[in-house]
């Protein structure tokens, strides 16, 4: 009680004090996932320094898992917490936070600055109802990793990949195709990639209606074919990113669909496998139609209850400056959102697979944009689990469950 009163007294005193000059720089709380390389700490310090005493960025570390990050921010925002100035949002959260009135849209003039030179797909994730609500900060996407010693020419389509793996299994060689099939977000990412690459979309642009059609049948067929072929890892139903990485490093797989972090990891863990490790773009579902891999990453938004919105907008622009984006990529392994950075030699050296990533990002797809995304994703991974029992017959159930989720009807699994 005493502390609360003292804090109140201080707040009142500060309020009466008036001008910024007397109270020093304002503190901006930046809620962001734990970044272990220290890249964010450096950016925060550099930006605070460059603000000439206008603000001081203080990093507030969120939990490791995405669900935990979202829950912590949501619980604070539901209580109108004014201490959330800058929020690190996963690419799928902007519609939800915007619709609930928890984040502030970017003013027209600043929005234009953000939109200039930023990857279009990332801007798409940051936009809701035609307004830019957050600023893309970093991105990520999956590539196809394969073993040069087993696969001289990488496959172009899923069909080719499955038949190559089947052939390898007949020869008794490592042959698994490692993909994320556990009942979680990563499985939804896979399904979204397949649907988009078959030319479809899970939910309409306005986020109101489920739009699964023939392309979804092709996606379900692809899962079915893989899950019932010798190419499949028997534990596909439990595989997340890290399990697939470990299977590849253990030498049991010929193919792996995963994020670029697997490359430095293999380099450190298993030099023998690493020397035969190669990458290419994700295989297509339809021959001749380019693949649209699901985009990932973080967007930065300004909290709706923040007392320092102007400073927060300024700080975000600084945090995503080219220098900071390059540092995040080189130190932290986070692919940048500014197109210009991809031609920077420093970045290209740190990211030997930059060309494949850039190509993939230019034609990447976005996960369903709806405030109810969490429920939609849970319904998808729940309905399609385990992958071994997936077939085109699941489409009806899937459609009705996704529509229920959009309408926030029923229970979430």
């Amino acid at each position, binding site marked *: 009680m005493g502390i609360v009163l003292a804090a109140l007294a201080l707040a009142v005193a500060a309020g009466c004090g008036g001008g910024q000059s007397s109270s020093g720089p304002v503190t901006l709380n930046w809620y962001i996932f734990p970044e272990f390389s220290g890249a964010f700490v450096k950016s925060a310090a550099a930006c605070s320094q460059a603000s000439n005493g206008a603000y001081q960025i203080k990093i507030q570390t969120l939990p490791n898992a995405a*669900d935990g990050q979202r*829950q912590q921010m*949501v*619980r604070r925002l*539901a209580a109108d917490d004014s201490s959330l100035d800058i929020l690190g949002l996963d690419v799928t959260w902007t519609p*939800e936070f915007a*619709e*609930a*009135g928890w984040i502030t849209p970017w003013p027209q003039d600043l929005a234009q600055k953000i939109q200039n030179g930023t990857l279009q797909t990332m801007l798409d994730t940051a936009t809701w109802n035609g307004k830019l609500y957050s600023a893309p900060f970093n991105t990520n996407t999956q590539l196809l990793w394969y073993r040069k010693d087993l696969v001289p020419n990488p496959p172009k389509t899923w069909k080719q990949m499955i038949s190559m793996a089947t052939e390898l299994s007949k020869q008794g060689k490592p042959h698994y195709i490692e993909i994320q099939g556990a*009942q979680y977000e990563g499985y939804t990412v896979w399904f979204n990639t397949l649907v988009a690459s078959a030319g479809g979309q899970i939910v309409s642009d306005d986020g109101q209606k489920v739009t699964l059609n023939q392309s979804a049948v092709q996606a379900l067929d692809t899962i079915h074919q893989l899950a019932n072929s010798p190419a499949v890892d028997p*534990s596909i*139903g*439990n595989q997340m990113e890290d399990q697939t990485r470990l299977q590849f490093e253990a030498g049991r797989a010929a193919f792996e669909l995963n994020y670029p972090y697997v490359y430095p990891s293999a380099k450190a863990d298993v030099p023998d496998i690493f020397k035969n490790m190669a990458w290419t773009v994700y295989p297509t579902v339809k021959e001749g139609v380019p693949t649209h891999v699901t985009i990932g990453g973080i967007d930065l938004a300004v909290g709706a209850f923040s007392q320092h919105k102007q400073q927060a907008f300024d700080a975000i622009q600084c945090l995503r400056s080219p220098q900071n984006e390059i540092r995040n990529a080189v130190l932290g392994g986070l692919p940048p959102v500014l197109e210009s950075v991809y031609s920077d030699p420093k970045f290209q050296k740190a990211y030997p697979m930059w060309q494949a990533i850039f190509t993939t990002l230019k034609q990447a797809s976005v996960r369903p944009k709806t*405030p*109810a995304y*969490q*429920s939609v994703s*849970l319904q998808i991974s729940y309905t399609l689990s385990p992958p071994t029992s997936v077939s085109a017959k699941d489409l009806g159930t899937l459609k009705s469950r996704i529509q229920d989720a959009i309408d*926030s*009807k*029923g*229970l*979430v*699994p």
Partner: protein
Amino acid sequence: MRLGAVADAGTAVGTGRPGRRPITERARAERRLAWLLCAPAVAVMALVAIYPIVYAIYLSFQRYDLRFPDSKSWIGVDNYTTILSSTDLWWQAFGVTVLITVVSVAIELVLGMAVAIVMHRAIFGRGIIRTAVLVPYGIVTVAAAFSWQYAWTPGTGYLAGLLSSTAAPLTHQWQAIAIIILAEVWKTTPFMALLLLAGLSLVPEELLRAAKVDGATAWQRFWRVMVPVMKPAILVALLFRTLDAFRIFDNIYVLTQGSQNTRSVSILDYDQLFTALNLGVGSAMSVLIFLATALIAFAYIKGFGAAAPGQELER
């Protein structure tokens, strides 16, 4: 439960009993004092327990999704219909919860009784035995659950390898439920034993000796003498554990996060509230869980004649 006890105590003190001699001035003053003394407790209760319960009931009749604040509206019992007609989620979770409750409480009762008798009869190192038995109950549930989780995960644990070299028991429904029950039993058997030990000390030694003289076997002495005398203690122990087990959350949250259909009703409710942010459906589910626990308590008290806390006042 607790609320009921307070209310009972209140009426017992407040109304007095008919047929007794008229209330004296002194008794009336004492009664007033009693009211004054429990007033702060009642006020705190109202603030921290009654208000949230009433608010949850109020929310449960609304469409209230934090993600769609604009479409908040009064929808009557729709949330309840949604939940009660959901066989693949609600009734599935309900079944798992009942299964975990029944099996774990049954095992705990048998084991707890054995442990209680050992503690009761121990001649040497009584203090050490009692302390050792209580250790699992003293460990934080989440910490214990994590050590179980690691133990049963292939690669990090020593237990998964016992089944087969590639076994991942936490990824299969029935094996995972068995592990959840094991973790519950390991954790709360000491609690059960402690409550039963209190009951055991109620059994008069003379009674057992008299039975022995009459030629009763050890089993007969246990079943015909000890158990009937201990019955109130056993019922209270069972009541507490059943209520606790029905609300199981932390072990499942750590061990499986409710995957592979190992959700309890509390886990399912947590998902509605904190993942889906659906306060309406989540509150309705909380009310249903509350009703289920109330029903369990009622069944024990009325059906088996367990003593409700606070009933002593009326004796």
